[in-house]
């Protein structure tokens, strides 16, 4: 986190003091069952940054992402959305914590688009309906406006012709692009990607990565948990390497990935050595 502030505090458009992160985790701890998955993680995403979180399976990167929009509630530590600290309270009668202010959680989640590894499209709704649900029921748009909004984002991910198809009639890559459109239709402040290509056949990852790259080029703020090393190197403004529930290394991709400081990252980048 210190790195992040140093990197950006000199940017002229961010004001004199410390810039406000769009989304920030501070010293987050999370235990699932008896396994401490996150052991004090801090990460901040500043506007227009693309942060890739790398690490072996089980290093806690997905849990970190899920803590950011409170799909998992951190046991301790803070999540900040812009200047607003999320209300997290100790859970009564059990370990861990719970969401303190459900309304705040909903509002913040609506501003954080999430794309899941397994797409999680709603199978009983068409592509268009999947994308419309948020605009209608969360943003409160009139139905006709919501249809236009949904069409706009389906066009953006190249699936406008498939708008009336149900998810099971779409390929994995197409489903994931619909899921991206669904997240975009909320016009979110930050996009969270949880291994968006891990469930895809190799020949289908390209279309999804192209979509994500174009979003990065638009200057969207994104946090991307991924195994696609070369992709992370290309699109990220910063990468964070996680190991054992901590961020082991963090910095610009060309530095971190070319001159890894920790043994863990060296092993991760080149398992042969």
């Amino acid at each position, binding site marked *: 986190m210190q790195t992040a502030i140093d990197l950006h505090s000199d940017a002229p458009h961010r004001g004199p003091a410390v810039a406000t992160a769009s989304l920030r985790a501070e010293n987050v701890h999370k235990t699932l069952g008896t396994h401490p998955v996150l052991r004090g993680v801090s990460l901040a995403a500043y506007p227009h940054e693309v942060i890739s979180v790398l690490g072996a399976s089980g290093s806690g990167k997905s849990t970190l992402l899920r803590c950011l*929009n409170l*799909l998992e509630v951190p046991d301790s530590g803070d999540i900040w959305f812009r200047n607003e600290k999320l209300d997290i309270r100790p859970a009564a009668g059990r370990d861990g914590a719970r969401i303190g202010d*459900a309304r705040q959680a*909903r*509002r913040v*989640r*609506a*501003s*954080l*688009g*999430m794309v*899941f590894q*397994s797409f*999680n*499209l*709603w*199978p*009983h*709704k068409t592509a268009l309906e999947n994308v419309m*649900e*948020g605009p209608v*029921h*969360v943003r409160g748009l009139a139905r006709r406006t919501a249809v236009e909004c949904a069409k706009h984002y389906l066009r953006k991910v190249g699936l406008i012709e498939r708008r009336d198809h*149900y*998810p*099971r009639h779409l390929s994995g890559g197409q489903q994931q692009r619909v*899921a991206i459109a*669904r*997240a975009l239709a*909320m016009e979110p402040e930050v996009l969270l990607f949880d291994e968006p290509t891990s469930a895809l056949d190799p020949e289908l990852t390209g279309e999804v990565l192209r979509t994500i790259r174009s979003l990065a080029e638009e200057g969207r703020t994104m946090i991307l948990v991924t195994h696609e090393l070369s992709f992370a190197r290309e699109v990220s403004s910063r990468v964070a390497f996680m190991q054992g529930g901590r961020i082991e290394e963090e910095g610009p991709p060309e530095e971190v990935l070319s001159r890894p400081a920790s043994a863990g990252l060296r092993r991760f980048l080149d398992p042969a050595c």
Partner: protein
Amino acid sequence: MGGFQEQFLRGLETTVLVAAISGAFGMLVGLAGAAAKLSRFRALRMIADAYTTIVRGVPELLVILLVYFGGTTALTALVGSYVEVSALWAGVFSLTVVFGAYATEIFRGAIQAIPRGQTEAALSIGLAPWQTWLLVILPQMARIALPALCNLWISLLKDTSLISIVGLSDIMRIAVVGAGSMRDPLTFYLAASALYLMLTSVSLLTFRLVERRLLAPVH
């Protein structure tokens, strides 16, 4: 059949009425029961568990008798003079309780069959829990639960015949009375069978149509 046709028709009405009301209320009880079983509150889970365990463990006939005589005893004690529970409402109440217990299990299973990611996707765009239920869980649950619900409804239709034992004038009661007074049991019981068979056939067809409409898009 010596003027019993008209009685049978009224019996059919009663049977359908009792089944429809118990089915409708039973669905609501089942939804509440499933919600309780999946709740994060331990007390609710324990109440729902006790409910389904007890009700599913006692024969339907006994549930009806217990509600009828128990209800009468309770109301009498409450009012201070002898009050008899109506057979119809005792029957509706009993069958609602029974239907609700089985529906609880059906709905719980159906809800648990929905991948967790479905709810997470809904929460992640900022939908409230009740919206998630309405838009994401219930429609998918209905599709999964439908075949089992169809079976349950068929059982319910036939279980209504048990209420005749406390004096409800349903198809079964008419058949028993007719069989006794006309000394022609086979005809009357065949007629009753035909009526039940007709009801269940119509139900099966209806469910099949609904299923075909609903089942199109699933996982």
